[in-house]
């Protein structure tokens, strides 16, 4: 199998905003915001590589898959998920307090109960309750790692960061994109993150250029952009060309599997993402990919998957096919993304949630984006009618620059039969 590693950028690959981020001093609190593919994670990783020595840095990500990918591609960095890291800190901090409470002759049963109820949780923490408990018990700082680098920082609420500060952390480098928030309540806006870090508006560095996607894939993703309060990220340059996303209508599911295997066979170092809606579909896809025998130039590509709750056993250090649920792909990027539309549903007419999901899924693709669908699917209803970028979707601020862009008459979807 062809080896993959974190690809170091060339000097010319970083724009002036990214250069500015990389020149920031080691100590302090920093917030970097930007849309998908703007290189937020890249600058976070480069910063960690620049300054890290020994155990002084922890690289935190939202989900396990991303944490595992970061670990494997960079190796030297210590990474963890935001919640696991917090839980460990919480346990380390609270256990001595509980022991002390237990030894206290007067015994404070209520406080011990409070402590237990806090420790019992692994997620859905009541951060305010934790705060009160720490104050009531004269908590002393325990931090050992001085610097925290947080990727996808928007996915944790402000109280999460406040508690980390209670644990003694002072140096935060957070990268975030509020348009990629996962849960409706458990997150932080740009303003909230700025306030927590004590930053003025002008101190927040915004990365605007999309470095990941081709122009057409970025334009396609922009069709699903929902946030009305902030402009969508700047499109990549027009000369970053590539194929138009394709929607294949299939009758025989095996043809989709064959198509994916041949794509992987083209280049064994490519990482191919197959995104599905449900675990049942994930299992079917994986099984079919593993069992199908077709003529290929190379040995059969490695086929891997991850299901929520499992340990991540995906080897991101090698190319191949990775089958994932839509919820696990955040922060990741793939050379080619295949989306199995069957199984995706719009609940309670909440089209915006589905759009947000399609925005995140689509923007994972670096070079190629392919949708497979069979029969009628509600999700397809929110695809553009005419396969060209519609006029009404042009963001207000872009209108004056319309002539410089190739939309609105740009084809952003190609529909084909896979027969």
């Amino acid at each position, binding site marked *: 199998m062809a080896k993959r590693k974190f690809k170091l950028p060339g000097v010319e690959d970083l*724009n002036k905003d990214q250069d500015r981020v990389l020149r920031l001093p080691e100590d302090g609190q920093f917030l970097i915001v930007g849309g998908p593919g703007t290189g937020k994670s890249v600058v976070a990783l480069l910063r960690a590589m620049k300054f890290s020595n020994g155990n002084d840095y922890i690289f935190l990500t939202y989900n396990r898959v991303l944490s595992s990918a970061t670990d494997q591609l960079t190796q030297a960095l210590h990474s963890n998920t935001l919640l696991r890291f917090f839980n460990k800190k919480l346990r380390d901090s609270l256990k001595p307090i509980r022991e002390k409470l237990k030894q206290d002759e007067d015994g404070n049963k209520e406080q011990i109960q409070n402590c237990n109820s806090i420790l019992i949780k692994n997620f859905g923490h009541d951060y305010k309750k934790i705060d009160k408990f720490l104050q009531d018990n004269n908590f002393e700082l325990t931090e050992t790692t001085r610097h925290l680098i947080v990727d996808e920082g928007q996915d944790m609420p402000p109280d999460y960061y406040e508690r980390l500060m209670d644990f003694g952390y002072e140096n935060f480098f957070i990268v975030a994109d509020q348009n990629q928030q996962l849960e409706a309540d458990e997150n932080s806006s740009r303003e909230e993150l700025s306030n927590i870090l004590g930053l003025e508006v002008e101190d927040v560095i915004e990365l605007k250029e999309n470095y990941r996607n081709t122009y057409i894939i970025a334009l396609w993703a922009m069709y699903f952009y929902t946030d009305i309060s902030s402009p969508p990220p700047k499109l990549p340059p027009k000369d970053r060309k590539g*194929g138009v996303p394709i929607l294949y209508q299939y009758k025989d599911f095996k043809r989709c599997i064959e198509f994916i295997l041949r794509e992987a066979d083209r280049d064994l170092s490519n990482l191919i993402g197959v995104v599905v809606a449900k675990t049942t579909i994930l299992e079917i896809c994986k099984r079919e990919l593993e069992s199908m025998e077709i003529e290929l130039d190379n040995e059969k590509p490695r086929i891997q998957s991850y299901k929520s709750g499992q340990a991540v056993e995906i080897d991101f250090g090698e190319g191949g096919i990775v089958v994932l649920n839509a919820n696990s792909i955040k922060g990741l990027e793939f050379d080619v993304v295949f989306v199995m539309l069957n199984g995706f549903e719009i609940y309670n007419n909440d089209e915006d949630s589905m759009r947000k999901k399609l925005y995140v899924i689509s923007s994972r693709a670096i070079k190629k984006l392919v949708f497979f669908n069979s029969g009628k699917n509600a999700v397809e209803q929110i695809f553009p009618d005419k396969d060209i970028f519609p006029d009404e979707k042009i963001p207000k601020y872009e209108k004056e620059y319309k002539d410089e862009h190739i939309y609105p008459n740009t084809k952003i979807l190609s529909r084909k039969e896979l027969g």
Partner: protein
Amino acid sequence: MTNKNRWFLPTNTDNLKMMVAQGLMSSPDGFSPNKYYKDELENYPGFIPVFKNSIPKNTLDLIISEQENMTACLIEIDLTKITQGNAKNQNYEAVEVSVNAHDDLLLLLAPLSLSCIKQIIFKSVDDKISLEAEQKLSSNFILSDLKTHYSKSDETLFKASNDKGSMESFHKDKVDENKIESQVGSVKLVNYPRIYAFGGLLTSLFYFAKNGKLSNNIYHDFCTIDKANLVDDKLCIHQYFNQIESDGILQIMYSKLLDKLISRENSKDDIIMLLEATDWDERFKSRTQDLAQMLREFENNETTISEKFSKAIKPLERLLLMLFHKESIESLIEYQLDMFTEDDYLLFSLIFGVRDKFIKTPKFIREYQNLQNFISSKMAEYAHLELKSGIKFKSTSSPKTVWDILNTKNTAKKAGKKLEITDCVQAETGEDFEKQGRKVIFQGYLELKYKIVEDKYFKIISNKNISTETYNNLARLK
């Protein structure tokens, strides 16, 4: 007479990194888009301004003015590396390029080779350490050949001297603005993309010269751009860089393709659009249409890649397919398919080098001992040849190709063992021998000639990547 004059190009570490990455000290128009940070280069378009012994305060302020936390540095230029041609002084009058020059500012016609760098001066040791550490964060900022270990921190050079303080804008005051404009206007523009493409081509050929005698010869042919013994497709590429025009069909097709690949508009769509364009002469049309159709079909996954290549017979067809199949020289190097010949790889390496340009040279090749400096000097030489500037540089020692090392008497055997290719080597002697059972007996001391069996060698070496460590070990053999 010993002269202690020193000549500096004051800039910031951001511009320095970019110049190292692109392989030349250039004017701002030679930088990648939006990567140039303000310094004196933009005040002297087409020239590299170098200051004698100290730097004006305004300049020291200017070079770190664009963003916060920037780091100033002084690139000390070794003027003795420029052996022919003139410079200009601050009045745009022609003057000799000399360490002893009386002027406080010399304008050297851009571009300059990286081998002209004597050392880099930093304000503090921390600045030097910090820049050196940045190499691990980049794929093309490699200081290895630039001898930065000789570079120093020298805070005094970053304090403007009093007399220069009064010269804050001396270059502007002394010169008649109209004269500057007319001088600037008369500077011929360097075709940087073509120069960088030539550097990419040479570097790529240097790597693939490992594949055998044919590849090695062609690398040397391109190194001496004005004389070559080439045919067919390779001749077309050579003529393109030599600016020799021809009305041959193949030559014209290559010329248009290379123009497209060198430009920024070189995506798959752009190549198809080029082939489908209506302005092709009637002699070409059916061929270009067929090629476009072949490329359109390449993206479908109906058959394997090897089947697609096996249907492509002509070199140009295979070349175009490979351009569509692999996105960079790095992925070309990692890709192996048994059906390709040495000739195929040669052509691929030529064209991928052109498309990627020197800046995209894989890090492990850039780190080959002395290669970066050598290619930089070749690019500078080529640029000044095109400009007809008359500027010549002191020659930079040429790194040996793997094939050269394998075919040099003193190093052949040791290199063969290191590369584990001894199975492809035959030993010959003209001496008489006698057979005694299984024994072969020669009279006297035996002089053996070693010969590489090329077919066998190619099969092994084409699947072998030559890492930095391997190459540098080979290059050190004596």
